[in-house]
């Protein structure tokens, strides 16, 4: 039976133009590896959005990063003050992986 390690799964939904800045914040927290996922639309307290823009200004992207608890906390601390003004969605959960060392 393959040994698993429990880590933290962070998902951040953000406007497309903000993604490079979030990547930089993640790097500050020591998180260099991530995956970007597309989205189609949604509704939040700032209203409804849809990926209907030529500019992509209101398109959103989901950034997924798997990391250890300390780094996850560090990134969350960095992001917390930005959540409200930039309308970000931040989700945290547990996840198990093989090769835990790969994620340090």
């Amino acid at each position, binding site marked *: 039976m393959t040994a698993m390690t429990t880590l933290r799964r962070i998902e951040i939904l953000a406007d497309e*133009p903000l993604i*490079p800045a979030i990547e930089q914040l993640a790097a500050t927290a020591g998180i260099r590896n991530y995956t970007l996922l597309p989205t189609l639309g949604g509704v939040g307290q*700032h*209203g409804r959005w849809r990926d*209907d823009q*030529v500019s992509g*200004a209101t398109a959103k992207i989901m950034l997924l990063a798997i990391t250890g608890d300390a780094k996850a906390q560090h990134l969350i601390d960095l992001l917390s003050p930005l959540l409200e*003004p930039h309308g970000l969605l931040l989700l945290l959960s547990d996840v198990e992986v093989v090769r835990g060392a790969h994620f340090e």
Partner: protein
Amino acid sequence: MIADFLLQPVILFFLLGAIAALVRSDLAVPEAAAKTIALYLMMSIGLRGGIEVAETGMTPAMALAGGCGVALSLLLPLPAFGLLRQFGKLDQANAAAVAAHYGSVSVVTFAAGSEVLRAAGMAPAGFMVAVLALMETPAILIGLLLARRTGPDSLAPRGGLLHETLFNGSVVLLVGSFMIGVISGKSGFAPIAPLFDALFKGILCLFLLDMGLVAARRLMDRRALTWRTVSLGIVLPVINGSVGVILGLAVGLDAGSAAALGILAGSASYIAVPAVMRLALPQADPGLYLGMSLAVTFPFNIIVGIAYYRWVSMQLYPVFAS
């Protein structure tokens, strides 16, 4: 004549899109197609403007028109900001963001307007494409000044907002295509003209179908719009466009080019400016500024504004020409 204009397929497809959205049809243009068409329109506009400049050479009128464009982009946000604060009752950040949109320009409004002017024998000069490119960004800088943005809490890129502003994809593509047009000239353009010239109006129909859908859907979600902001979405283009036409005629542009300057001044950005505002002024509401520019001003310009700026230019041209 207005009726003739309104019965053109390109306008009718815009209306069709709007009606489809209003009856809650599931009609939709795939996002990737809309983005690709937008790239095509910018390449085509840039190339055709550049080729014309290659033909006519550089003229003093060109420098003058460019100067006017930059001046309009820098100054028009100021009275707009005042109106948005006073009459529109917007807070500082939102008023500044919206003002920046109205100082900047809409490529598709310019494209539709150019076709209308060309059909009426009032083709604007090729260099107006360069003016279009010049007008895209100065308004952004004024908007940020008006917002007196400080914010240590901002995600604004380390490279600075200036970089985002100057190297926005639409600016790069428009300027680049214009320069490719200038360099390769008419003979270089010939082999690619079947795509970038002959198909232009047809593809514009497809794009305006999508714009109709997008504009009407935004209008229906109009959470952020009040009767005050909707009114300003009509008043601002009328004022700005009139100023643009008069300034163009005052510096000696021909009637078609002055009308085009009016169209530029009267149009509001929905590509370059919103992308920067999401970064720089997150507290401003995209539902508001995209609602005003896409759902109010864009349709107004397509259906009424373009014809109006042209009419102003035709009326006043003799006054200034004399």
